[in-house]
């Protein structure tokens, strides 16, 4: 070894030792400091429900990252809508979405609802009315209070006649109430949310029945003037067969707020608005499906700088959708409000119901209105999701009671403990004094693994599952193996008659190479497994990779320096019988240096 003459032959082991101890203590302190003293536990250990959904599509290209992310956002919303807190939705692999609902949260329906395919339809609005307790029936003879509608789209502004609307009707359009359909679609300025007052600023506020645009919506929002529900039943004609259903629908009742979009898409139906942020719901009578959500090829939120109209959503249809949309808008544009609106229905809930001002050929449209950025992006997501040619199959739904999870964790920990004790015993019996070094090394390794896992739980959401625990236990063996490789090397040198200090130094480069090569193989295995695998395998691979990496750190920064230090101690260097390095016991011949390399070719070539 080419060590500079100025340093001791065996280097400065104290420095490396100090470094790793500082790192270890630092990590442990960080763990306690940030209060993340326990690794986050996976569903199988903590209890809860874990749903794995696998994307399916006729078009393999459709299963891509951005589509999956949109799907995750949608599913996230669905889960939250079920009132499940702390649920976690994430992609796994390239075509799975995992929904974890912790703590045995027995949301039986969760599994059913979460994975259902989002269905997005454009249906003409026949009539709508507020529904639910808080809903003081708004007045809304629409013509009377027509708001200056939303900002028309750039191109539309020329032609737009400003959609008058049943504006003040508190629309449920909740989060993303589309307020205007540009390119001749105008907002149904319906949303009573404060932003709905924006029409005041609308450049083309040429509402036919222009009442004070600013005033009207805000009034509607705050105090819908009393009128009975039937009056609020907006003018559209509800077909007779739907009348009863529409009248009976009470959207404030959970059970009734479900998906009525039955298989027969050619029939009219009813729906509730999907959100109740304003404290009430709207119910809708809707015509047959005109455009299917999957006919949207693209939707994106953009900002309309030209007309300073703020955020809007641009829509692009495919051929099929373009034709249908042109026809529909052509028809709708001739209607009187509210029948000039169409509803965007996602999963049975009306997400938005913009107004149509004119027929829109060409397959592209803009929904404009007084969107906030979030609202616009939310709506774009919804529209995109309907455009995703993805459906999801439930691959694996696991419900684990907290008790079983606790049992499994306990068993894993006990197994780990027993494994550790066995390994410690074995190294003590076999390596005696050196065994102490391997125990110390295992402990450092364990402290590092534990603190890193805990911190990763808080940092990147790493959750310890049962296979990961197995991986950690198996890693005890890997870590101890590295010690053995080094110890055996040292003993080989001692057998050849080398005094301990040189033996430790001479053994190191060889042991190091073996350890690095074999750890690299282990790490490669873990990395490949992590990258291609799904489900439980990933947790296992992650732990295995982590501990293999730590193994290298521990052996370089801890074991090697520690042994170097110990080799300077009389106990070890004199080969005390309990040191595990007793030359006699190892069968080394008394140091007759001249014959150290006694073992003919193998030993000789080793030196080559």
């Amino acid at each position, binding site marked *: 070894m080419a060590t500079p003459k100025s340093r001791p032959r065996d280097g400065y082991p104290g420095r490396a030792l100090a470094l790793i101890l500082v790192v270890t203590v630092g990590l442990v302190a960080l763990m306690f400091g940030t209060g993340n003293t326990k690794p986050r536990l996976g569903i199988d250990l903590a209890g809860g429900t874990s749903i794995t959904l696998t994307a399916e599509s006729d078009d393999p290209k459709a299963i891509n990252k951005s589509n999956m992310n949109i799907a995750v956002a949608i599913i996230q919303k669905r889960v939250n809508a079920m009132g499940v807190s702390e649920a976690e939705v994430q992609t796994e*692999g390239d075509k799975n979405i995992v929904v974890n609902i912790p703590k045995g949260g027995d949301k039986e329906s969760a599994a059913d609802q979460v994975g259902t395919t989002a269905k997005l339809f454009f249906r003409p609005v026949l009539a709508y009315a507020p529904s639910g307790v808080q809903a003081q029936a708004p007045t809304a003879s629409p013509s009377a209070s027509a708001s200056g509608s939303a900002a028309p789209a750039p191109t539309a502004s020329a032609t737009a006649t400003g959609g008058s609307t049943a504006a003040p009707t508190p629309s449920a359009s909740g989060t993303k109430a589309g307020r205007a359909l540009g390119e001749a679609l105008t907002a149904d300025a319906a949303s009573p949310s404060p932003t709905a007052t924006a029409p005041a600023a609308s450049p083309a506020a040429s509402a036919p029945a222009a009442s004070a645009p600013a005033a009207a919506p805000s009034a509607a929002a705050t105090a819908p003037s009393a009128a009975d529900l039937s009056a609020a039943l907006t003018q559209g004609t509800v077909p007779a067969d739907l009348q009863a259903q529409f009248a009976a629908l009470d959207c404030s009742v959970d059970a009734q707020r479900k998906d009525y979009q039955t298989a027969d898409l050619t029939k009219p139906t009813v729906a509730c608005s999907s959100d109740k942020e304003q404290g009430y719901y709207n119910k809708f009578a809707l015509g047959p499906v005109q455009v299917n959500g999957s006919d949207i090829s693209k939707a994106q939120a953009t900002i309309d700088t030209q007309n300073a109209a703020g955020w809007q959503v641009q829509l692009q249809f495919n051929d099929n959708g373009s034709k249908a949309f042109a026809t529909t808008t052509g028809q709708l544009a001739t209607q009187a409000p509210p029948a000039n609106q169409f509803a965007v229905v996602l999963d049975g809930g009306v997400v938005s119901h913009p107004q149509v001002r004119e027929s829109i050929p060409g397959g592209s449209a803009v929904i404009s209105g007084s969107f906030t950025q979030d609202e616009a992006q939310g709506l774009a997501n919804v529209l995109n999701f309907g455009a995703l040619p993805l459906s999801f199959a439930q691959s694996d739904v696991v419900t684990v009671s907290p*008790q079983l999870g606790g049992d499994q964790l306990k068993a894993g920990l006990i197994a*780990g403990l027993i494994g550790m004790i066995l390994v410690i015993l*074995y190294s003590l019996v*076999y390596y005696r004094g050196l065994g102490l070094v391997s125990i110390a090394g295992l402990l450092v390794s364990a402290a590092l693994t534990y603190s890193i896992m805990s911190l990763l739980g808080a940092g990147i959401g790493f959750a310890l599952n049962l*296979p990961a625990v197995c991986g950690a236990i198996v890693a005890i063996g890997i870590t101890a193996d590295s010690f053995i490789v080094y110890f055996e090397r040292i003993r080989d040198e001692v057998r050849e008659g080398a005094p301990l200090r040189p033996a430790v130094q001479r053994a190191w480069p060889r042991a190091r190479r073996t350890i690095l090569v074999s750890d690299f*193989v282990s790490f490669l295995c873990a990395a490949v497994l992590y990258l291609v*695998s799904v489900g439980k*395998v990933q947790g296992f691979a992650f732990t295995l990779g982590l501990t293999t990496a730590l193994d290298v750190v521990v052996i370089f920064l801890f074991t090697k320096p520690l042994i170097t230090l110990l080799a300077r101690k009389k106990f070890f260097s004199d080969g005390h019988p309990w040191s595990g390095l007793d030359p006699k016991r190892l069968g080394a011949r008394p140091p007759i240096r001249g014959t150290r390399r006694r073992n003919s070719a193998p030993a000789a070539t080793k030196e080559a």
Partner: protein
Amino acid sequence: MSRFSNLGHRLYQGEVSFDFVGRRKLWYSISGVIVLVAAIGLAMGLHLGIEFKGGSVYTVQKSGLTVSQAQTAVNDVTHGTTALVQSTDNGKVRIQISSEVEQSPDSIRSGLAKELSVPVAEIDSQVIGPSWGEQISHKALLGLVIFMVLVTVYMAIAFEWRMAVAALVALIHDLLITIGVYALVGFEVTPGTVIGFLTILGYSLYDTVVVFDTVKENTKGLTKQSKLTYSEAANAGLNQTLVRSINTTVVALLPVAALLFIGGGLLGAGTLNDISLALFIGLAAGAYSSICVATPLLAQLKEEQPEMKALAKRVAQRRASEAKAAAEAAGEGTPEGEEFADEDLPAGMVGQRGQAPGRSRAKGRPTGKR
């Protein structure tokens, strides 16, 4: 222990030597038989867990609940379809229902809860879509192939292609044996098992790499001498690392054995058990294969090299001449001649055990070797 560590010493010095490489035919035939049996087992088919077929599994814990009670309850709920009901070792009852039962898992679960008067929340369930297992297997296979390609490339660079080939063969050998045992014994293959199989990949190679590393070192500059053939040098290296291999294998197996014991003993069937069982079989096979399959195969491949052939020839020539000299000396009948013959034997010693008495007699003599 001390005797064992002494064995380590004698192995290292070559006083005791097991001729692993020389007996390759024996190992090959043993492995061949095992692999053949494994292949037959595989042909018979693996016993795939429900994860690979789709269906649902419910685990109920209730004191005093017997399998037949549970069976009755399930039959009531599912209206007579055949569900697989087993009791696990820890007092739980596990009910498997195939995906052919067209009843929503929720309703089965609540039905069971009612029949058995257990709170719904305490029934653990797992519902698996039929394509899930396919996906897992597909991914596992993909991982296997990618890993094999990468590791072969890596070993070909770090060592040489022959070692890569030998390691790969040993790896496939281990996998086959492990899967074969599963097929023959009829253990259930679950995703946990698949994890175990995949881990064997890394571990089997870990072992092989440790051995190859020493073999590589031992055979460096081998062509410059004429005392040892490649096989002999490889075998010597193998013997030197034998203790190390045994130790690393034992140490690796101890935690896995603990897992197996706890997983099986305390929890009954489950992920812990699945992973550790596969690992245990695989690790044991891995230790065997790196010694008895990988290294002999490597030696065989190396002996095909022209320079190694030449070396073997030189060694043979040298031995022949030495034997002749020894014979002549013996013919003279002088005791020195015996000594002499003994003295020169180290050259072939590795291949010839039973020389230990001679060795020990020579021991302590400061001269005599080169």
